[in-house]
């Protein structure tokens, strides 16, 4: 009985977290991005959400934690605790195809497959990103560093526009 009730609550909690959007990529939820790793409810009803940061220095992680606690409180689960884990390390491979389609529709080229590669590997080897505006692959990487830690800056030679790409890590 207790286990069943807890499971039901867990489902409800996860659906609340589906509504918490990433502050910097507001078309994806914190679950779709893989930031939320787990939700636990103890028999006394205390909620613990386990999160992992995307990048070590991502300034959005504090806001995300506050947003999670606030959303749960609004849904009737006050006092949730947020716990941080670093293992396994966050990877863009956790972003599902449907979520990648949302990124593209938003104007951000979705990440390719993360490659571990050599320790020192100059000049990124993987294929160029597809332009989210005109779908061309005639694009070039301008800088691996963009407006946020998770994005690179590319240029589309076909439609002659800059665009951002979600970095694969």
């Amino acid at each position, binding site marked *: 009985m207790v286990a069943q009730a807890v499971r039901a609550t867990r489902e409800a909690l996860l659906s609340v977290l589906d509504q918490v959007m990433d502050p910097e990529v507001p078309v994806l939820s914190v679950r779709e991005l893989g930031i939320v790793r787990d939700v636990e409810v103890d028999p006394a009803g205390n909620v613990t959400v386990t999160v992992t940061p995307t990048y070590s*220095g991502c300034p959005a992680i504090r806001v995300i934690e506050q947003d999670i606690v606030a959303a749960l409180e609004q849904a009737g689960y006050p006092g949730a605790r947020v716990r941080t884990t670093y*293992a396994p390390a966050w990877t863009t491979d956790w972003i599902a195809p449907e979520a990648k389609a949302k990124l593209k529709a938003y104007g951000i080229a979705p990440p390719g497959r993360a490659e571990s590669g050599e320790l*020192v590997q100059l000049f*990124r080897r993987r294929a160029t990103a597809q332009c989210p505006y005109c779908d061309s692959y005639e694009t070039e990487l301008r800088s691996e*560093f963009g407006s946020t830690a998770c994005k690179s800056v590319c240029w589309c030679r076909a439609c002659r526009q800059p665009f951002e790409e979600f970095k694969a890590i």
Partner: protein
Amino acid sequence: MSGPAAPPSVVPAPAVPTNALVEYLLRLGDDRLVLGHRVSEWCGHGPILEEDIALSNVSLDLLGQATMLLRLAGDAEGRGRDEDALAYFREVVEFRNCQLVELPKGDFAFTIARQFLFDVYAVVMLDALTGSIHGELAAIAAKSLKEAKYHVRHSGEWMLRLGDGTDESHRRVQKAIDDLWRFTGELFAPDDVDRAMQAAGIGPDLAALRPTWESLVRDVVSRATLTIPNDLPRVASTRGGRTGSHTEYLGHMLAEMQIIARSHPGASW
């Protein structure tokens, strides 16, 4: 089931002196805190917009890594100091970063050469630390390694552009390597702390990492048509940044970095 009670399932903490572990984590954390601050000095001053953004991003990653490592150091110390207390309320002699990272940022060539030497050290060291028996340290290393790999791609590609670029860029980056080389000895000079960590399975054999580092560095340096100075790096051993002996530059940097937190202790913003 009968028989003796099962042993406790909790894995005991590694049997090393706590202060050696704290020292070790401070070294790793302080390298990134100090270098992160130095790189942040380029924010708004980058030679081109893309580089301003790139260096600011690198700085942010390094400060994030420092946060994780210093938090772990504070936990290991057990005196209630968190990462902010360690960053803002220690004196210069208490910092454990290598001297390489505290030198002023210099010109763009100097910054890139320093980043490159450190970034290769970082990937080699972090890669080794992913095998640490200290689970939290191994997790932080695995996460940081992903970032260090694109950091070294950034600095390494710039080494090629500057070294194999114009006479002026070649001259400047060669001078930077010449000036920086002697500070690399400290990176691979193990002392009692390193040996204790190695014996406990927490850290790698530091001296054994040096050949890997040096061959990776030499490969890029030669492709960049640059040369490594012939003089052997000075081995700092007990007189380097790892034991709190710093160049005159660190104190000035800390004064700037710490003044807000010290003027308004406990403030939040």
